């Protein structure tokens, strides 16, 4: 008996509205300092370090859209029959460098939902791919997140 109903699986392929953001020197510097980076080009904000797309595209929501534990609800995801999140994985491809002044657009797609049986019961896996492109529509970063629910 599968936990994944046909209705739930119909969410595969669902896509978020594209989000366009401006890369600034100040935001690069803040991120480089906060991560303990030791490279001058990042600390000075001349270039964005790897993973800078994480702060650039973290959801900015209003206070009443946060859950009591301070988390913003991911509207791309359907309601899953399992809710306890376990460790997740990240795959990132880097195609082009990022500099202050760049405008980047991210689109997230729910690309897969599947089930496996774990030692302590069933597990649900889902995958979200985020494509980041520049204004010339060239791919800058592709990130795939895999999360496990139990």
């Amino acid at each position, binding site marked *: 008996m599968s936990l994944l109903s046909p209705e739930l699986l119909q969410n595969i392929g669902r896509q978020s509205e594209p989000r366009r953001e401006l890369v600034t020197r100040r935001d690069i510097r803040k991120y480089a300092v906060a991560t*303990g980076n030791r490279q001058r080009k990042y600390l000075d904000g001349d270039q964005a370090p790897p993973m800078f797309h994480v702060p650039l595209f973290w959801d900015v929501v209003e206070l009443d859209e946060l859950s009591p534990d301070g988390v913003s609800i991911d509207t791309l995801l359907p309601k899953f029959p399992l809710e306890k999140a376990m*460790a997740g994985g990240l795959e990132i491809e880097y195609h082009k460098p990022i500099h202050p002044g760049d405008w980047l657009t991210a689109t997230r797609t729910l690309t897969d939902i599947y089930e496996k049986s774990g030692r302590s019961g069933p597990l649900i896996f889902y995958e979200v791919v985020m494509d980041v492109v520049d204004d010339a529509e060239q791919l800058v970063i592709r990130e795939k997140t895999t999360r496990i629910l139990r």
Partner: protein
Amino acid sequence: MKAAAAKSRFGALKIGDELPQRQFECGNVQLMLYNAALWNGHRIHFDEPYARDVEGYPGLVIAGPLLGDWLHQCVEEWLGDDGRIVSIDYSNRVATYVGEVLTSGGKVTAIHPEAGEAEVEVFISNAEGAVVTPGKVVVRFGESW
């Protein structure tokens, strides 16, 4: 000049070569600044009574992507201007907490001469020596951003 240096370094690369290790100890201030830079309001990262009493953690939880960033730093500091990261694949396996001493490191596991690329197995480990964040990175020599 730079290209020649990168080429000779790639030529000398051997499977099993180890990356320099680095220690990280994330304090309250750094964790707060990191989550502020993200706009991440998750209380397990800054509200210690909440993290302990409601969620049952032993302390403030270090945000998972910060450990992912440290894996990148470990590889980039080793590469210098001789190459760049093409891709990474990592997972957060074990939670880590403010005040823990963590170590990043890695070793070369494959070399692809025709592409000028190498595969590097990377890790963040805790004070007990357990790997909390394993990963695999593909690097390309002779291309630097």
